[in-house]
């Protein structure tokens, strides 16, 4: 994102946006599928919200419209891809990069965006709490069961296709919240969602840890720091990718696994 902003505010903006996209990716990962293009739903929401804001639609209505559009697109994608094997699902999610490349929206300066990061941070925290409650619920339990052994999940009566459609739709909805709210960020630029948004979201999940909904938030904090820190902000995309790679190979449980290992000792 091109323009300088009060670093702390920018940190919170990034934390909120990446945290929401990451949470959405986490929900789908829990179901045994890797969503490599969740940022596309954020881009879709932003592309739906920005023109409405430009036309003077009340902010809340414009944001809600963007979220709904993203959720519907997520549901459609889920219906198309939920029956696929894990490799085919990942393959299909890569097609969302074409969406990221093609959506257009006016930028923050053109919209004269002036929002506070408080909303997006609050949304990310509320989403994490909601996701935590969801994980503990009956539906959350079955989503995890589907992700760990689909055959056994079917044997206890769980429909894995329906579980995946639900996860993808919820994931798209959370990404949609990020996209809609990001329109109010002064440095908003829809091109930020091209590939790098997906990497940031995945990095948040893997770095933070997949064991609970707090993991993506913890990872989002690290990604946001990298994006704002004067040592790394010029190469934030590379830092996220290298961080994701290192965590995947060396610490697949994320930083949360360090704490849980220490606690078990």
């Amino acid at each position, binding site marked *: 994102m091109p323009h300088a902003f009060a670093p702390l505010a920018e940190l919170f903006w990034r934390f909120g946006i990446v945290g929401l996209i990451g949470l959405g990716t986490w929900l789908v*990962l829990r179901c*045994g*599928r*890797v969503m*490599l293009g969740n940022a596309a739903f954020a881009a879709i929401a932003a592309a739906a919200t920005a023109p409405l804001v430009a036309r003077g639609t009340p902010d809340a209505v414009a944001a809600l419209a963007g979220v709904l559009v993203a959720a519907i697109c997520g549901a459609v*994608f889920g*219906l*198309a*891809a939920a*029956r*696929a*094997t*894990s*490799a*085919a*699902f*990942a*393959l*299909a999610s*890569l*097609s*969302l*990069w*074409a*969406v990221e*490349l*093609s959506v257009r929206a006016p930028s923050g300066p053109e919209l004269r965006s002036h929002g506070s990061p408080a909303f997006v941070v609050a949304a990310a925290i509320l989403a994490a709490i909601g996701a935590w409650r969801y994980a503990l619920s009956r539906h959350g339990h079955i989503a995890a069961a589907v*992700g*760990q052994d*689909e*055959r056994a999940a079917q044997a206890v009566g769980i429909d894995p296709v329906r579980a995946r459609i639900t996860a993808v739709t919820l994931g798209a909805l959370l990404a949609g919240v990020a996209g809609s709210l990001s329109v109010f960020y002064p440095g908003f630029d829809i091109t930020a969602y091209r*590939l*790098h948004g*997906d*990497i940031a979201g*995945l*990095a948040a999940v*893997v770095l933070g*840890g*997949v*064991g609970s909904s707090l993991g993506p938030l913890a990872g989002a904090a690290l990604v946001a720091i990298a994006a704002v820190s004067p040592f790394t902000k010029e*190469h934030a*995309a*590379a830092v*996220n*990718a*290298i961080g*994701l*790679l290192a965590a*995947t*190979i060396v610490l*697949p*449980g*994320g930083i949360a*696994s360090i704490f849980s290992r220490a606690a078990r000792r």
Partner: protein
Amino acid sequence: MHRRLERAQEFTLTQSFVDIAFKGSLYALFAIGYALTYSAGGTLNVAHPISAMAAAAAVSWLLARDQPIWIAGGGGVAAGAIAGVLVDRIVLWPARSRGGGPLGPARPLIAGLAALAAFGALAPEPERPTHALHAGIFRIGGFGVPKLMVEGTIACILALVAVVLLVRATRYGLGLRALASNAAAARAAGIGVEPMHIRTALLASACGALAAVTLFTAPYYFAGRSTPFDLPLAGLAAVALGGLASIPAAIVGAFVVATAQIFVPTADASDAVAAALLVLSIAFLPRGMFPVTRLRETDRA
């Protein structure tokens, strides 16, 4: 007037055939890279485009130093092949060999994507060649086709045939098919799994690199009619249409993608066609146009 219209239609038809032959062979060569690595490891190698990016960078560097096109092309293929093997050893092998852990079977997939993103962020954009690559035109029925395009298409088609023969009729191919069916049984039969992965990475990356070299040097595409996602998206759509585990099917899928793309005028629209075909084939043909019965556990996941 009628005759001039007929000539215009001839040119369009001829141009369409040339387009399909050119793009289809490129996409097929790139797509079989995905199919080969999936056969060996049961996972989608998202980092496959790195071989293409390394090849393009090498070609650009060599041409800038006034090397002849055949040396630049060969250097590009070699660079792409080496890059692919390095990615396999440094990124994918550790992710594969340590088991899934909390990330499950998604671990090599995520590692591959991270490697691709890191490479894309750190590697400089290669400069497309501008000088005398335009020289040389073949006339096909009155329609002028750049010489490099024809040569590139022939090279890609020959490479496709060579790969199919390699997989069908050699010891390596038998080992690959055994590994694709049952890794444990392949090991027990004495097939070295990791050497097989290395050879497959080399072959897959060389294919991807050749496709990238051909696309990168084709003056037809210099006018900005391709995007960086041209090859990867089309390659993915081809394997989705054909079926991840089958090389001949991926080739057919590639030509289907190329045929569909001739109806749209711009590069972005071409990407959209490839993406749409990808999603539609996953939704309605989950095992591809030519379903192959596999015993591989990952296919059931």
